[in-house]
């Protein structure tokens, strides 16, 4: 009887389809823009006050979901950078270096608390400026940023326990450059350990998403942090280069592309500057046949579609054991149909806007390459808004290890799916990449997890989960994904000299 059943089933299985366009749909649930204030224009935050740029130039920042201008921000030139570095140096020498550690901690705690108080406004601004869904900025970006500050505030007066039997001293002025994918969170990642260890900061957010970092400057002002301890200046690559090349900067902390990371490394070669670089990635996410498949599929969605795939540790290479590949792909397709793509301000939106036209072009270029390489493409059938920058969640199956879409970072909601047969094979393939930031392993077998994590050349390996962050956990890469660690005890050592 079971046999006949199977015959019927296999006949039917081609036509079986779940319908996710349902008669019961969610009504729009937009978050209110009026709960946030965005100034028409932002100057540079130097020495505790807002200063006009020497360049006299401003550039627009737009909402990528509507292409409407949100505000304009100052374009800092070399003279502005010099002013910011001087102010940081002055604050370091005269105030911050001498301040008792427990007093330093109070300021960091205060910034974290104000950040929590303004959480709703920060989330709205983050979503407007960057295009990420309000659900993510509200539930991930802002609370995780505040957590990071709280965590490092706690370390400020306990450094002797972080580095037992050793004495530490701060490096001095830290030049910090953050990316556009998690603007506020990355600012918190950079500022928190620097201040806790007694350094002062010149920070430049990415040019497409400066607003929450400027809001953070307002919070820093409100927290009454001594002038010059944190300086926030805005601008594009030239401004960043001016920070990197400034002679009086002691440390560079950069999160961004591998290309820029290489430029920075060349620029600081031969100087005494320390650096931590957190660069690109092409993480392998590995599903074994004994994995909890439904949870693994959910993990894949979280790994590649979180923040439109604009995540350096995104699980963009999916390796599935051949015996379960069909099932995984089918489940993934079904799951993609229930992802809501659209207005980032709507509380039900799962996938928002692509951060910029430039990034959209890059993603589309890779989608075209994937098609040309002969991989099988599937995208969800959702409608896209007419204005703004959008990309449907997309997966490529039948991808080969030698395909460019399996090798190069796309930084968008585009997944490459490859198959494997044995543990050794998948470890070899996973490590066969110039990157090594993160990886994921899905299996019900504990011993397999430990075997994989030991042999995988990646800074973070998640087991039966993905994209999990905690301030106490160090984050950073192998190979061309960068060096140095942020978060945890490791994050402290990036900002001190041990003497």
């Amino acid at each position, binding site marked *: 009887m*079971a*046999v006949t*059943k*199977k015959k*019927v*089933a296999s006949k*039917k*299985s081609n036509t*079986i389809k*779940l*319908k*996710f*366009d*349902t*008669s*019961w*749909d*969610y*009504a*729009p*649930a937009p978050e209110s823009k009026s709960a946030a204030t965005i100034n028409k224009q932002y100057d540079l935050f130097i020495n505790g006050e807002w200063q006009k740029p020497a360049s006299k130039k401003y550039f627009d920042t737009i909402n990528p979901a509507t292409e409407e201008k949100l505000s304009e921000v100052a374009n800092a030139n070399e003279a502005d950078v010099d002013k910011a570095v001087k102010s940081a140096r002055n604050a370091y020498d005269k105030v911050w270096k001498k301040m008792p550690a427990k007093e330093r901690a109070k300021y960091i705690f205060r910034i974290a608390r104000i950040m929590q108080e303004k959480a709703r406004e920060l989330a709205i601004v983050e979503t407007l400026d960057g295009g990420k869904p309000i*659900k993510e900025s509200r*539930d991930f970006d802002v609370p995780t940023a505040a957590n990071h500050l709280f965590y490092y505030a706690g370390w400020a007066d306990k450094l002797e326990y972080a580095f037992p039997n050793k004495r530490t001293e701060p490096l001095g002025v830290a030049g910090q450059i953050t990316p556009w994918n998690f603007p506020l969170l990355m600012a918190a990642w950079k500022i928190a350990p620097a201040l806790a260890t007694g350094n002062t900061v010149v920070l430049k957010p990415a040019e497409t998403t400066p607003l929450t970092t400027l809001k953070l400057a307002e919070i820093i002002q409100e927290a009454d942090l001594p002038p010059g301890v944190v300086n926030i200046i805005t601008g594009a690559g030239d401004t960043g280069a001016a920070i990197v090349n400034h002679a009086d900067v002691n440390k560079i902390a950069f999160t961004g592309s591998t290309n820029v990371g290489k430029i920075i490394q060349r620029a600081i070669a031969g100087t005494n500057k320390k650096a931590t670089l957190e660069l690109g990635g092409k993480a392998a996410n590995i599903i074994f*046949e*004994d*994995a*909890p*498949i*439904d*949870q*693994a599929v*959910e*993990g894949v969605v979280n790994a590649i579609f979180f923040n439109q795939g604009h995540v350096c540790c995104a699980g963009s290479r999916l390796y599935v054991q051949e*015996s*379960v590949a069909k*099932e995984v792909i*089918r489940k993934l397709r*079904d799951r993609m149909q*229930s992802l809501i793509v659209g207005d980032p301000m709507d*509380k*039900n939106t799962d996938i928002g806007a692509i951060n910029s036209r430039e990034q959209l072009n890059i993603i589309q270029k890779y989608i075209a390459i994937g098609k040309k390489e002969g991989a099988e493409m599937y995208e969800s059938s959702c409608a896209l808004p007419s204005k703004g920058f959008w990309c449907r969640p997309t997966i490529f199956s039948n991808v080969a290890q030698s395909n460019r879409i399996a090798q190069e970072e796309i930084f968008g909601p585009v997944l490459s799916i490859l198959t494997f047969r044995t543990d050794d094979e998948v470890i070899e393939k996973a490590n066969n990449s110039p990157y090594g930031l993160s990886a994921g392993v899905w299996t*019900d077998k504990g011993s397999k997890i430990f075997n994989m994590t030991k042999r995988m050349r990646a800074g973070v390996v998640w087991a*039966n*989960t993905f994209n999990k962050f905690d301030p106490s956990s160090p984050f950073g890469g192998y190979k061309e994904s960068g060096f140095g660690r942020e978060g945890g005890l490791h994050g402290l050592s990036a900002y001190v000299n041990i003497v």
Partner: protein
Amino acid sequence: MAIAKSSQLIHDFALSPRIDQVGVEERASRFTKRSIKNEAKENGLKLVLNMIDLTTLEGKDTDGKVKQLCYKAMHPHDALADIPTVAAICVYPSMVKVAKKALGDSGIKVASVATAFPSGQAPKEIKIRDTKYAVNEGADEVDMVISRGKFHTGEYNFVFDEIAAIKEACGDARLKVILETGELGTYDKVRRASDIAMHAGADFIKTSTGKIQPAATMPVTLVMLEAIRDFYYKTGKMIGMKPAGGISKSKLALHYLVMVKEVLGEDWLNNEWFRFGASSLANDVLMQLVKLKTGQYQSANYFSVD
């Protein structure tokens, strides 16, 4: 299914897919983040009301009580126009005849628990007689319990055969198989019991009797919905789902609806394939519907208890 193709010929229930506890709970909590407003809320609430198996399963149940409940099932709140009835009345076998008569041709189904509900600790013959009695009295649906004791000792064939025998005894009545997930202990076992029940002939799988805590939870229901989906892909046969016990608030019921919509989709969003086993949920839904219409909450005294 992860394991070799031969398992499709002789299903080995010990090889049912594994469930990751952290992952499934995280996924379930994500459904609760959906914001249901305005017409979505109104339509959702009406759908919920229409999916309720209005239940009374007490030792002190009487004809009088059941008759009153049946009237409530047909007329949930006559002060409010344009609202649906509930899906079914769920009673003990001895009350089936009374309920059937009271409901007349309203279209509301009579579901009867059977098979030595709630413990299921009785010989198979008695369970079959219990079932046949309920069906002969007019039950449209039978809610049976599985033998959890046998399940825990690994006697899956016993559990399977028992369900199959009850299914046979049901005749035309639809069979809901109660797994009593609160007694199973892990999500792995919930999944395994779901697979056994579906393969053995269940028309519906149901979480709980309502007599054991925890009763229905969102992660448990999610595991069962995913089992239903896998079974559907494998066999082309739709299986219904009924979470029961512990769902007393509209908001939670809407979260369940979101989960059904996003896991199984349109075909399951009706009372043919999804039910809530609940006694107090109906009044909360009515209260919310009145609130949507008038803008104000009314006191519980405005809604009949039976």
